[in-house]
């Protein structure tokens, strides 16, 4: 007698189980198949090509009506199952009951819909079934149609690429800081984003959807940061949820999904589950490989054979034509591991292997995934790779590989990449000059003017010569920033500008960094270069800052901090002094000291107290003095014409005005100014980075002084008649320094390298000077704020305390 088998859900997992079952025992079962969708089993993974138009629905059908008929499967498609009565062993459908001996849940999963306002408007679809796909196809029929895809994971990106192929304007919103963060690391995520943008898809990262609005249907998506995105359709692809309501109502043991044992049996011995609705040992499943394994085990269990389901390593590939990525194993979690990183900026290739002990445990690849399956094999088999460790990253075909070319980044530059910013010379012009007979740096300078002005691009010009001439040109030894790169600071600065590199990941990849995310030497420098060159595009990264700048206070040798409030131009008030005295008392400050920069230092404050102390000082109108930053420190002034009998101008007023313009700005190293009201120079302006001496006829501005390990008098920049001009020249000089100097060079060192004449030329030109001031103002629109106020906010304060205090637990 045939056993009565009922299957709820005609998806890929239950469909595969059915195939195995009929293969093993074609006549053993009387099978009834329920499906809520009004059709049988099709290859859901291939919905992306259907959406893009590369395939038709008919081509992805796995089991058609003929197949079900031929195998004697009773199909109840389009009919919902209302409940399961396990006592009577019947499944109750909308059109009547079906008794079972054995029952399989293959209910799959449903799309997770973010419950933002407007999520239920027509025009908001998931990307799960053929209905969703049809809705998207219809929307793409609108000429100039716009789609917003929420979710930058595997599914969302496939939908985005497909809609783009159908001619829609597509924007992808992703909540994390890089795409596919579960499968990719930031470097591969960066390359993927770049590829998608190249095909016309807009990608917004760290984008939080606030609401979907529209008259009767979805017409616009509004983000938390105020961005408004008009659209014709919204695709939600943020994740899936196992469909377990029916199983729960039936009283089966469920966690996040239906719990099964290694034989796919639920808490009821006659009820089984397979696919995305399954929870096994706390794991859920979304990729197809383990689902097919489950199907095989389930069929074996039902036919009385021995089979056990086990978790395996998984690999991921994205089905977007032209985006070549691969990830496998575990590359983000663990204790004792080592990275091997390989980057080829010219070909857009990134590979990272993660090794633990003598085994490969994870691999991420972008651009060239040919060796993916070989690496995946090593991961799955736990192969001992100690013998081939050195050349492992080059793949199976390449043992004993060539060294990585240190000039790869420059070799990869396109001809239109600008090498010399002063004279607007691009790489192609230089290679043409070389083709025309130039063989030395001097030849290039004579014929193209490249590196003939400030000279900071000399290293790049030499590399272009070396790449083009090969062994005929020997590069004078230049020192890379650190062990992560052979490029110098000047090279990197130039390339960040000319190649428009606007993120750390872009720098690491396009300039061929040999490490995952730099080191303590290069990262603060790159962080500064990026924020100085792209103030509106790049966000300052606190984790790339030295402790003092990250904590907005100077760390002392005992781990305490010093707090220095700003005193504009060295002027204070009785109220400010009282507030400082009160703070010193309240937080038991062991030392109060007057600094050389005309303000007061509170030394010996513990980190925990910083935010509260800042809040108290803020209440009295005091802000951070940035005594800790590579930025504007102080503007030292004398009392000037207001009180002094020798004063020629209001030096105090000018100093305050300059400080209020310049404060908060980040610079390559610290910047100190002095403004003296007469040539007696009481503010000691002539050993500052910028010194202004007031005279009867105006203001003498001099720059590049030093009073540290070296002592050096300033050199004249300009003499101007009005205070406004003095401010303009000073601001322009600070901006020029920000744009050109290498990180940790004080102005006097930078001026010595580029030459005072060059600096004077840049500033003397009125249009160039105003452009510098304008760019400084753009940057200051972001950075002219008090960091103390930001971190003193109640929401920020927990981050300044220890993560946990276990001293109590330990005592118990």
């Amino acid at each position, binding site marked *: 007698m045939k056993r009565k088998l009922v299957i709820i859900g005609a998806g890929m997992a239950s469909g595969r189980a059915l195939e195995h079952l009929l293969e093993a025992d074609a006549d053993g079962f009387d099978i009834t198949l329920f499906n809520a969708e009004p059709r049988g089993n099709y290859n859901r993974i291939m919905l992306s090509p259907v959406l893009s138009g590369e395939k038709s629905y008919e081509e992805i059908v796995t089991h058609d009506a003929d197949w079900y008929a031929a195998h004697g499967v009773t199909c109840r498609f389009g009919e919902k199952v209302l409940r399961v009565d396990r006592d009577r062993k019947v499944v109750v459908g909308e059109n009547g009951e079906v008794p079972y001996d054995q029952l399989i849940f293959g209910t799959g999963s449903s799309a997770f819909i973010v419950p933002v306002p407007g999520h239920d408007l027509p025009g908001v679809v998931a990307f799960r079934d053929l209905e969703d796909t049809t809705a998207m196809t219809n929307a793409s029929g609108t000429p100039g149609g716009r789609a917003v895809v929420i979710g930058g994971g595997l599914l969302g990106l496939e939908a985005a690429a497909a809609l783009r192929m159908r001619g829609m304007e597509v924007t992808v919103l992703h909540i994390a800081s890089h795409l596919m963060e579960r499968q990719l690391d930031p470097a591969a995520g960066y390359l993927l984003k770049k590829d998608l943008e190249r095909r016309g898809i807009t990608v917004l990262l760290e984008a939080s959807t606030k609401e979907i609005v529209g008259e009767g249907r979805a017409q616009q998506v509004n983000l938390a940061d105020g961005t408004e995105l008009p659209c014709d359709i919204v695709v939600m692809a943020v994740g899936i949820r196992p469909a377990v309501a029916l199983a729960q109502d039936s009283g089966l043991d469920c966690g996040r999904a239906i719990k099964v044992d290694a034989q796919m049996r639920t808490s009821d011995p006659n009820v089984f589950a397979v696919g995305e609705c399954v929870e096994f040992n706390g794991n859920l499943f979304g990729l197809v490989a383990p689902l097919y394994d489950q199907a095989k085990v389930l069929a074996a269990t039902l036919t009385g054979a021995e089979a056990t389901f086990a978790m395996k390593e998984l690999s991921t590939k994205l089905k977007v034509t032209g985006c070549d990525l691969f990830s496998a194993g575990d590359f983000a*979690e663990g204790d004792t591991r080592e990275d091997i990183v390989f980057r080829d900026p010219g070909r857009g290739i990134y590979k990272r292997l993660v090794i633990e002990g003598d085994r490969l445990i994870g691999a991420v690849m972008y651009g060239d995934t040919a060796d993916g399956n070989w690496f995946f094999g090593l991961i799955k088999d736990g192969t001992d790779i100690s013998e081939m460790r050195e050349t492992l990253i080059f793949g199976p075909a390449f043992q004993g590989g060539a060294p990585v070319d240190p000039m790869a980044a420059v070799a990869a530059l396109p001809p239109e990449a600008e090498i010399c910013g002063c004279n607007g010379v691009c790489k192609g012009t230089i290679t043409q000059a070389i083709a025309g007979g130039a063989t030395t740096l001097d030849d290039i300078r004579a014929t193209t003017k490249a590196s003939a002005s400030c000279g900071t691009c000399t290293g790049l010009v030499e590399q272009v010569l070396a790449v083009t001439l090969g062994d005929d040109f020997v590069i004078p030894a230049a020192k890379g920033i650190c062990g992560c790169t052979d490029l110098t600071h000047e090279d990197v600065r130039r390339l960040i500008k000319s190649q428009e590199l606007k993120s750390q990941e872009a720098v690491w990849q396009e300039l061929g960094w040999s490490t995952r995310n730099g080191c303590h030497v290069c990262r603060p420098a790159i962080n500064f270069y990026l924020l100085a060159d792209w103030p509106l595009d790049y966000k300052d990264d606190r984790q790339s800052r030295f402790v003092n700048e990250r904590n907005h206070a100077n760390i002392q040798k005992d781990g305490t901090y010093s707090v220095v409030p700003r005193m504009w131009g060295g002027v204070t008030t009785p109220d400010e002094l009282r507030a400082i005295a009160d703070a010193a008392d309240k937080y038991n400050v062991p030392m109060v000291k007057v600094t050389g920069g005309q303000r007061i230092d509170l030394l010996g404050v513990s980190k925990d107290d910083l935010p509260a102390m800042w809040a108290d000082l803020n209440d009295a109108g005091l802000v951070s003095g940035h005594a800790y930053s590579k930025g504007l420190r102080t503007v030292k002034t004398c009392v000037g014409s207001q009180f002094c009998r020798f004063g020629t101008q209001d030096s105090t007023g000018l100093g305050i005005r300059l400080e209020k313009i310049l404060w908060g700005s980040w610079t390559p190293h610290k910047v100190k100014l002095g403004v003296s009201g007469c040539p007696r120079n009481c503010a000691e302006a002539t050993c500052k980075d910028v010194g202004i001496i007031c005279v009867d006829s105006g203001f003498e501005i001099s720059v590049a002084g030093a009073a540290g390990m070296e002592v050096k008098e300033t050199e004249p920049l300009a003499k101007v008649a009005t205070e406004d001009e003095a401010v303009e020249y000073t601001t322009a000089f600070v901006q020029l320094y920000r744009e050109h100097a290498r990180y940790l060079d004080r102005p006097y060192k930078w001026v010595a390298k580029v030459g005072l004449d060059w600096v004077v030329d840049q500033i003397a030109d009125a249009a160039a000077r105003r452009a510098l001031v304008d760019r400084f103002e753009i940057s200051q629109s972001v950075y002219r704020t008090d960091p103390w106020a930001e971190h003193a906010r109640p929401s920020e304060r927990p981050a300044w305390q*220890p993560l*946990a205090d276990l001293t109590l637990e330990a005592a118990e």
Partner: protein
Amino acid sequence: MSWIDIGHIDDIPLRGARTVKTHSGCIAVFRTSDAEVFATGNACPHKGGPLSEGIVHGTRVTCPLHNMVFDLATGQAQGADTATIATYPVRIEEGRLLLDAAALSPSQAAA
């Protein structure tokens, strides 16, 4: 091993660190990538610098006081330096950070 819940992974900034107070001194918990954490002693063996305040790069940290670099997995100083810092088992379970309770025992600190 018994594990103590010390907080959520997102309480630690990416490429940053937080401290955990214990009777045997402060432990630094580092987050080197989205889901990768390490726990070590917080004090640099050189001059006691707070390692949790250092710049985190790859799976290393640089001491904020004098730039000594430590591998977070092994605790070994890098380059010419030879000192070692204590390392403690820590793991992530559904976003929670779990620290090995043995890290709290005074004998561990004395070792």
